[in-house]
């Protein structure tokens, strides 16, 4: 590998830009599902007969809301697709290790697949393709996180390990970190099936999906909290705090999503339990009464369909799920990595999750300036 090429900061910057743009893209995609705006533009790849890039911006910008977000999603997705191509070119020309180039190819393949899925979802007006499209987006986001980790120009860059470099065994904690991304992704798919349940589906089928989503939420929460706890004990307090905060935020958003869309279920309605409890447990009444007065579902106004609050909560729940996946993938990337010291964990605070922490801190101030690489550990 050429020394000059290996020192190029552009792969890292490009990966950062790609990752940073993919998250809002996922957010907008979730917004489209929340507002059922996926068919606001009935053709593809054009927009109402126009070339995507030549659609009159006034009509787009000042037009109906669903057109605004659907066409905006397409424009942003096109930008992400072009950036992915550019990143592949950059990593190839920069002489990056083979693993990084392979990752960039995977990203390109995924983004092409994702675009095609989105297109056929429109052309066929097929809701199940919207589900697949929604499940592929977070996968691509996770790959961009891996690209950031793999192109980081430090001695502890997190390249995917080769077979010979891979650690022979994982500790119990390591296993939990390794399976967390799979658990979170499974949960994302379960959530996507809930969001995309067809209108003609049966209520009992939907109920099964709800139960599966709740059960997997419990599993993910337990595993993520154990991982966060172990990270804290290992001295990675910031990483642990971020993981726990995103998890708690996501669970809260999940509960808020349910209440925003469906209000309280029968068994959780305090006015009902209040009255039912009166039959057998009159002594419980004062306590229930207090709860009922504060939290009774009847004390809140009906939600506004398509309103800002409901839309934001539901979409945030969808998008933060992807963020949790990204964090889990980032942390797991620190397990089977090559840092020049095969089989060992990267130095404290230098793993991909820490990278994600920095991401949230530096996103507002633009792409970070990487330190000059001293050597390429896998070259």
């Amino acid at each position: 590998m050429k020394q000059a090429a290996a020192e190029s900061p552009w792969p890292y910057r490009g990966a950062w830009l790609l990752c940073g743009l993919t998250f809002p893209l996922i957010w907008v995609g979730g917004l489209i599902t929340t507002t059922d705006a996926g068919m606001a533009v009935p053709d593809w790849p054009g927009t109402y007969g126009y070339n995507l890039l030549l659609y009159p911006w006034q009509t787009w910008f000042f037009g109906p809301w669903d057109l605004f977000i659907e066409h905006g999603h397409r424009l942003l997705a096109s930008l992400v697709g072009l950036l992915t191509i550019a990143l592949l070119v950059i990593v190839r020309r920069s002489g990056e290790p083979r693993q990084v180039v392979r990752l960039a190819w995977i990203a390109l393949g995924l983004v092409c697949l994702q675009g095609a899925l989105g297109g056929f979802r429109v052309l066929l007006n097929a809701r199940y393709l919207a589900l697949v499209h929604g499940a592929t987006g977070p996968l691509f986001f996770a790959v961009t996180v891996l690209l950031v980790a793999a192109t980081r120009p430090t001695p502890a860059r997190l390249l995917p390990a080769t077979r010979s470099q891979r650690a022979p065994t994982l500790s119990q904690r390591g296993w939990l970190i390794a399976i967390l991304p799979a658990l979170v992704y499974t949960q994302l798919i379960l959530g996507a099936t809930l969001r995309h349940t067809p209108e003609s589906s049966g209520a009992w089928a939907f109920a099964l999906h709800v139960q599966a989503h709740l059960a997997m939420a419990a599993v993910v929460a337990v595993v993520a909290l154990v991982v966060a706890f172990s990270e804290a004990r290992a001295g990675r307090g910031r990483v642990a705090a971020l993981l726990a905060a995103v998890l708690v935020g996501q669970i809260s958003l999940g509960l808020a999503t349910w209440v925003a869309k469906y209000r309280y279920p029968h068994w959780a309605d305090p006015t009902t339990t209040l009255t039912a409890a009166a039959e057998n447990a009159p002594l419980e009444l004062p306590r229930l009464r207090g709860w009922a007065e504060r939290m009774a579902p009847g004390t809140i106004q009906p939600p506004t369909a398509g309103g800002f609050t409901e839309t934001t909560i539901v979409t945030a729940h969808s998008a933060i799920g992807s963020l949790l996946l990204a964090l889990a993938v980032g942390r797991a990337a620190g397990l089977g990595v090559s840092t020049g010291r095969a089989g060992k964990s990267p130095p404290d605070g230098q793993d991909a999750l820490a990278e994600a922490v920095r991401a949230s801190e530096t996103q507002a101030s633009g792409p970070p300036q990487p330190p000059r690489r001293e050597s390429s550990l896998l070259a």
Partner: protein
Amino acid sequence: MLGISRSAAGSIAWVAACLVGCGPATFQPNELLHSSQGLTAAQSEAIETVLLEIFGTPAEPRLPELLHATIDHNNLIRCAGEVISHEPGVTQGLYGRHCARCHGVTGDGQGPTALYQHPYPRDFRRGVFKWKSTYRDALPTISDLHTVLERGVPGAAMPSFRLLSTDERNALVDYVVYLTLRGQLERELVLLSVEELAEEELVTVATAEPLLASLSTAWTDTDRLVVNSSQPIQNLVDANLIAQGKELFHSELTGCAKCHGTNGAGLTPNVTASDRDYDLWDTERREILTASQTTDNPRLIAAAKRAFPPRPSWGRELTTVKRRGGDEPETLFRRLHQGIAGTTMPALGPLRPGQPAALSDPQIWALVAYVESLGISDEPSDEGSPHYAASAQEVP
């Protein structure tokens, strides 16, 4: 609790449906009604054929000539089928986009999300609506349906659709009327098959048309059946009026406190399982579930297994919660006057003009004043809405 086996079967069916492209949505027969009335497969099939002939499918609805005065065909087209826009800002498939996930494609209140909602979403097929301005047994006015769409139902999952355009709400209201008429006609045809036709005699479109004409007329007559007070709205903060209302509330004559508790606190400490009330829809479910335990009719047993669990109705607590049907004095007056259709909340006024009643209009106003004084709702108005005051004074 939910039956996992039922869920699993439904889920497998859903996954299978998805694998083959989800398939077109179809109107489902009222299986509980068909099976509980002992219809043969041929009778059910004949009814479905007639309904298909008259009303079409969810993707391609039909509007018979005699419904043109009730429903705008363009509105029907706009609500039907898959969600799609063929020009910017004009969305088709409005019912699927906004309503079907709760109310179901057929309007049976059994959409995919309905099971976990409390209360269950409205089943349109009986033509019974709770929140309306008309006499208890009458259909709601078109304006009533608009009001529910705009306001939503506090405490229930029904949201406010005030962000939709007026055109879109008009279209949705027309589609709800369409689904209601379809469900009403289905019920009439089932009863006709059971009560008047021989088993081998099947219903036809010709049989159905007079029934449909009668049902359609009922929808066009609703404005005549709006309940109006015989006197203008009262001063609802008047202490004497509130005291009178309180006395009535706790009297045997009205029986309000039996369900709503002393001072409207919603406590019913003496309620036992046998005393529990069920609304119209849950009563039907209960009866069919009970019947299914002693029958060997496999169709009825299967229908009962798929039915939602019946839930008892409770008298609403009046001190802390928003009224689901609205808090305005004139709305409360009508609710006390006619009760709530489909529930055990009785009418205190006459069920038709000129009929005897438990309370006079001034007494009902006194109850309104008392109920208003209990709630957390907006401050009661001295004069009420100008619209209502004006219309009330026109009533002789």
